[in-house]
Structure formats: structure tokens, C-alpha cells
């Protein structure tokens, strides 16, 4: 009999837990959802420090490495074209110089953005001056927009500008080699 009682009690506890716990979680979630920006700015700062910053840092390192890698490989190629007075050397050189400058701009703009995001993430007592927090957030967004535009600019230099010139060069060289082989 005691065994049956203890089993019933266990079952009752499990059923109660199944009913009560989701209600508690929902209630807690509702409380968090109703928080104002003043109450949530700490959460934002924590997100910026622990999630956004490492993500940005990784993207910055990977992009810079990639741009340098592509630049170095293209540089060797363009030097060969220049040394041998081959077509499209001048155009490719111009684009390569643009790529170099755009990469520098990207690096500098990222530093500005990083600084703005850090100032936002480390601002003290954000809940006491939410206007100041919003102002810093706007600065960080503006700086990030610049970095985004730098990335788009570099992407545009690489493709279609450089890829188109390489395609043109390929067509020209194929024609030249065919003509030379026929004559």
C-alpha cells in the first residue's frame, strides 16, 4: 500500500512539474519581453562583447588575409604582363592599385567601427542615460555601414572589374596565339 502511495505521489509531482514549469518559463519570458530599452541595454552590451565582437574580429582577420593573398598573387601576374608589354597590363595595374587603396580604407574604417562598438559596449550605467547609449549606437551603425560599403567596393573591384579584364586578356591572348600558330 505504501508503495502505491509513493508511486502516486511521484506521478503527481511529475504531472505538476509538467504543468507548472512551462507556465513559469512563459511568465519569465513575458517579463523579459516587456522590458524597455533602458532595462535591456545591459543585455545589448553583453551581446556586443561576447557575440558580435568575436564575430567581427574573425571576419576582419579573414577578409584582410584574403585581400592581401589575392593582391599578392595578382601583383606577380601583372608584373609579368608589364615586363613583357602585354595587353591590359595598364588597366589591371590601375585596378590593382585601387584594390590596395580600398583594402587600406577597409582596415582603417574597421578600426573606427571597432572603437565605436567598444565605446558602446563598455559604456557605464547605460540604463541611466539611454539617449547617450542610443547616440553611441547610431555612431557604431554609421561606422559599420562604412565598413560594409568598403567590402562592397573591394568586391566590385575584384568582380566584375578585374575578372572582366582577365577575360578580355584571355580572349586577346588566345586570338594572338591562334594567329601565330596559323602563320
Amino acid at each position, binding site marked *: 500500500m505504501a508503495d502505491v502511495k509513493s508511486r502516486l505521489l511521484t506521478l503527481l509531482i511529475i504531472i505538476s512539474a509538467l504543468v507548472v514549469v512551462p507556465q513559469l518559463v512563459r511568465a519569465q519570458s513575458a517579463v*523579459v*519581453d516587456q*522590458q524597455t*530599452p533602458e532595462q*535591456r*541595454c545591459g*543585455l*545589448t552590451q553583453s*551581446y*556586443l562583447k561576447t557575440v*558580435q565582437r568575436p*564575430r*567581427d574580429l*574573425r*571576419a576582419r*582577420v*579573414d*577578409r584582410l*588575409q*584574403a585581400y592581401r*593573398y*589575392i593582391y599578392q*598573387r*595578382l601583383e*606577380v*601576374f601583372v*608584373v*609579368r*604582363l608589364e*615586363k*613583357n608589354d*602585354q595587353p591590359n597590363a595598364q588597366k589591371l595595374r590601375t585596378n590593382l592599385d585601387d584594390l590596395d587603396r580600398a583594402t587600406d580604407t577597409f582596415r582603417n574604417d*574597421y578600426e573606427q*567601427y571597432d572603437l565605436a562598438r567598444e565605446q558602446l559596449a563598455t559604456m557605464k550605467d547605460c540604463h541611466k542615460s539611454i539617449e547617450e547609449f542610443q547616440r553611441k*549606437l547610431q555612431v*557604431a*551603425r554609421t561606422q*559599420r*555601414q562604412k*565598413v*560594409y560599403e568598403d*567590402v*562592397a567596393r573591394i*568586391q566590385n573591384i*575584384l*568582380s566584375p572589374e*578585374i*575578372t572582366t579584364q*582577365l*577575360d578580355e*586578356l*584571355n580572349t586577346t*591572348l*588566345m586570338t594572338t*596565339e591562334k594567329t601565330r600558330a596559323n602563320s
Partner: protein
Amino acid sequence: MSSEPLPESNTKPSIFTKLKLNRLSLPGALVCVIIMAGCIVAVGYFLYLQNPNKKYDLARPGQKDNLSLHVEDDEADTTGPVTAAATKQKIEYLNKELSALNSISRFEPEDLNDQNIQLVPADQPSL
């Protein structure tokens, strides 16, 4: 209560006795284990370095280059005229490098919108 003779196997010297390991102290045994573990790690790292798929691994802190971008070797010929074949290869390499770039974040402005940075609650999914 007659005392039985010990089994024969118990009287034989064990492998530990033969190798004189029964005299090994605890620190000595730990050193042996650490050395063996070091050997395993060294062999594992050697195999990793030899693996051609290593370049698809994530770059580690302190490494100079993004390994996923190593799609072309250093050109052997750095002075001779460029041929159509070399140009075609360069186009292929550049396309691969561009595709590797596409997998990296572009610093989209939306990443800092109010919902993403948790300044306002995320929209609840509609049921």
C-alpha cells in the same frame, strides 16, 4: 584446513616483474604516461600536417594566412610572357578565391539592428 599449494601461474614472474616495472614509482609512471601521450599527440599532429584537407580547416590564432584561400601555388615563372592558358588558370583561381570570400561576413548593417543586438525583443514566431 589443509594449505593448498599456490597455483602455478602465481609463481611465474609477471610481465611487470620481467620489465622491472614493479619497482616503478608513481611519479615515474606518470612521466611514462605523459611521454606516451606526447608521442601520440606528435604522431597525430604529423598526420594532420600531411593531410591535404588541412587547408579547409579553420585558421588558428597566430597563423599568418587563411588556409581556405590557399588555392594557388606561388608562380614558378615570374618574368616570362603570360600565355592564354596561364590567364585562364588565373581566372579559375580568382573565382575560387572569390567564392571563399563569399563565406566570410560582409559586415551587414542589419547585424546591429535593435532586434539582433537584443535591444528590443525578437518577434515571436507566428503559430
